[in-house]
């Protein structure tokens, strides 16, 4: 049927391409018994090396995660003013993650619904004011 012929003709180029690819692939892989063939011993050695690499990566990853957890401080500083503040809440986020500041003022709050209203992303720093500097402002009862 003409329609069937048309379908066949339409498939032809695709099929021939597939054949060509399989030929190319067969050329690229060495034949059985050729000098490029990987022996069982070499394969085992390769697997061992990969296992070792995986182990090292796991240890490093675990260490990095542990470090991040250790650096996560919660609490408030009781330091004298002028001394370096200690971060409270979550650890500082890299500037690239401060997307809320790039949004319009009414489009910045999606994270609260997802992560909880009181989540302390970025933290806050307060401390004792032991210097003689008078207050710049007042937090009055509202």
């Amino acid at each position: 049927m003409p329609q069937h012929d048309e379908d066949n003709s339409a498939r032809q180029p695709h099929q021939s391409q597939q054949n060509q690819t399989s030929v190319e692939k067969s050329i690229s892989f060495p034949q059985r018994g050729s000098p490029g063939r990987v022996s069982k011993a070499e394969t085992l050695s390769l697997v061992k090396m990969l296992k070792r690499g995986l182990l090292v990566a796991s240890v490093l990853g675990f260490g990095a995660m542990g470090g991040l957890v250790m650096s996560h401080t919660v609490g408030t500083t009781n330091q004298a003013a002028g001394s370096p503040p200690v971060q409270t809440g979550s650890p500082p986020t890299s500037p690239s993650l401060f997307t809320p500041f790039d949004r319009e003022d009414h489009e910045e709050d999606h994270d609260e619904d997802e992560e909880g209203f009181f989540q302390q992303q970025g933290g806050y720093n307060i401390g004792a004011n032991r210097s003689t500097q008078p207050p710049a402002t007042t937090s009055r009862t509202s």
Partner: protein
Amino acid sequence: LEPIAQPNRLQPPLAPPDTPHIPAGMSRIAFRAMGTTIECMLPEAQAQEGAEIVRALFARWEQTLSRFLPESELCYLNRHAGETVSVSPLLFTVVRTALAAAYATGGLYDPTLLKQIIWLGYDRTFDDIPPLVAVVDTPGQPGGDWRAIQLEQKRRAITLPAGVGIDVGGIAKGMAVDAALNALHREGINTALVNAGGDLAIRGTPPTSNYWSVAIEGKDQSRIIALWSGSLATSGVGRRRWQQGDITRHHIIDPRTGESAQSGLWSVTVAATRCRQAEIAAKVAFILGAKQGIAFLQQHALAGLLTLEDGRGIATDNWPAMTGNSGRERKIQV
């Protein structure tokens, strides 16, 4: 409540709070909006530009969110309770945030207490409330209607239950402070302090100092702390209170009773990352009272100072030692 003596904290006040010290290189701008005084500290070179940004933002927020402006979008929404209303992104975001806060506090913050506060006499701007308001023969009605509010994110639509109105005054002020700092940052102004009647937040520090010195208004005198980053908010009965018959009312409503909260506290100051968080946490801690309030703040890793009605202070473990206090601070074990 066992006091822990902290005699080393006793120092005289450094300056009266009504005479703010403007750090070198900074300018102070103040204006009225949202029923309170908005104060900004901005770098001298960017003060004019920054003031315009903040002023425009607060004007827009007030125009949209005031319950005292009949033409505001909030009033329109309240008038159409029981219907689905498409709203602006600003109103939708504020209501959604208010509901998130209500959920996070188990309903101790409740944005649907409008009729209760009107019954108590706060039915007009605070400046217009007479010294003695009429008694309304309506028993206190608990809140909780926020649970029935429906939000449709896609259509940006809100459906209030019939007969329910919302008041986002406090949280909107905190959110406006956060938004103002963000708006300034977008225009390249990275050092600023914005204070909306006690709800304040900072970004950066003044050129000549690595912190902002902030006084916290107490009952008898102010306490002073250093703020490096984040925000502070104070809620209390020092200002917004009035007389209704024989009863002294104030604006912090306990949603469990529908009446002004009676917790034995004068005020609560909270430090948090965002001003809206500090605002809501201060309000909720005030409603809860001393012991439960401290537990609530510590549960959320927030620092707070609770001033009792007799003027003594109780602080969370992470609240710093302060100058200018009366030496009557104590820690509480929770």
